């Protein structure tokens, strides 16, 4: 105590070699070795990335043939799409003069560009397919019934936002396929009540041009992913709150 300020090499070394790592570890991992029921549970719900998972589930829910993990695969594809999309954004400029050239550059001039572009494209097609199959599974297992009816409603919004993500992304390459698909799609919007007004606000004008491209881009990379992320959070939270995944009566 008296020599508080005296430098002791041995003590200092042992402090940094043993105490600091342990302190650091304890500040991050706040439970003991997971060999007891309590520590096993703590492992899951003291970890931000794992806490969304239930600590315990009923046996049938982990059987592949119950859910085919279609919701889970949809989520995985959404994460892949977010990552690959974020990378594509470094090369893509939403301008009618540049967009098509940028896509060509991604395919022929950027290392792994074609790989990332195809991952994003196929992932997008896959997500539309799996979200639909997921909905079918929920329907066939009767999992939409109370108390899960509200999660079905959230699911419907997720289905629509997935389809809108697909639709808005389709315009971005600014090729013939994109141009005519959005020409047709925007005209379909004008058949709904308030017709031409809807087409006008969707395209930001009367023609499929720069105004439409920037609108679709902002919706595709910002608005829709934001809404989808939020709703997926609520969706998975509701699965937990509704007593875990559905199944035969206990």
């Amino acid at each position, binding site marked *: 105590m008296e020599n508080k300020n005296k430098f002791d090499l041995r003590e200092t070394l042992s402090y940094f070699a043993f105490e600091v790592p342990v302190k650091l570890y304890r500040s991050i991992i706040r439970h003991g070795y997971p060999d007891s029921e309590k520590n096993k549970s703590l492992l899951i719900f003291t970890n931000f990335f794992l806490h969304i998972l239930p600590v315990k589930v009923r046996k049938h829910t982990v059987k592949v043939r119950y859910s085919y993990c279609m919701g889970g695969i949809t989520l995985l594809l959404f994460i892949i799409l977010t990552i690959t999309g974020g990378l594509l954004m470094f090369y893509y400029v939403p301008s009618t003069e540049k967009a098509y050239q940028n896509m060509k550059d991604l395919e022929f001039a950027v290392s792994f560009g074609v790989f990332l572009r195809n991952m994003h494209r196929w992932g997008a097609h896959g997500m539309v397919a799996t979200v639909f199959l997921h909905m079918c599974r929920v329907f066939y297992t009767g999992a939409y019934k109370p108390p899960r009816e509200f999660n079905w409603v959230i699911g419907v919004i997720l289905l629509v936002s997935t389809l809108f993500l697909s639709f808005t992304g389709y315009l971005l390459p600014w090729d013939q396929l994109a141009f005519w698909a959005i020409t*047709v799609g925007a*005209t379909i919007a004008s058949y709904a009540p308030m017709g031409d007004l809807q087409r006008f606000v969707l395209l930001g*004008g009367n023609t499929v041009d720069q105004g439409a491209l920037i609108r679709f881009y902002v919706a595709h990379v910002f608005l829709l992913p934001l809404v989808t992320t939020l709703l997926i959070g609520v969706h998975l939270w509701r699965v937990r709150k509704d007593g875990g995944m559905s199944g035969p009566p206990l």
Partner: protein
Amino acid sequence: MENTENKKNNSEEELKLSRRNLFAIAGWGGLLTSMAASVGAALRFMFPNVLYEPSPIVKLGKTSDYAEGSITFNESERMFIFRDSTGFKVISAICTHLRCTVNWSEINNRFECPCHGSVFSTDGKVISGPAPKPLEWLHVKASPDKRLVVNKNKVVDKNYSLIV
């Protein structure tokens, strides 16, 4: 007498707005009004007032460039120019179904849409397919330098023709 007066006093007290309530109403009212105004402004913001779109009035080639009896397709302006013995007629190539560009079929002597198969006769009438309306005939006039000027926003009767 006494009773009724009491009643009156009571109901007056109930109606009296406490300071706390007044502030609560003012607070919530202000918050909700400003939120509604923000949403309204954001919605209005999405409707542009100035558009940098190409003019709907387009100038085409010289009237003498079109041979008598010819049908000319202008791809970028999406229209067909008919030149008959008396003058000019212009029909829009925008399919009335979902706005694809229709093709002129030389063999069948009719307009055919590649998107969902709508078919239109030479005068624009729907022969078959999902298109709900005939193709639009567009207003055409000649400029002082003898060139065709078409107004894409001005639909005319199918008998309208520019006599030259």
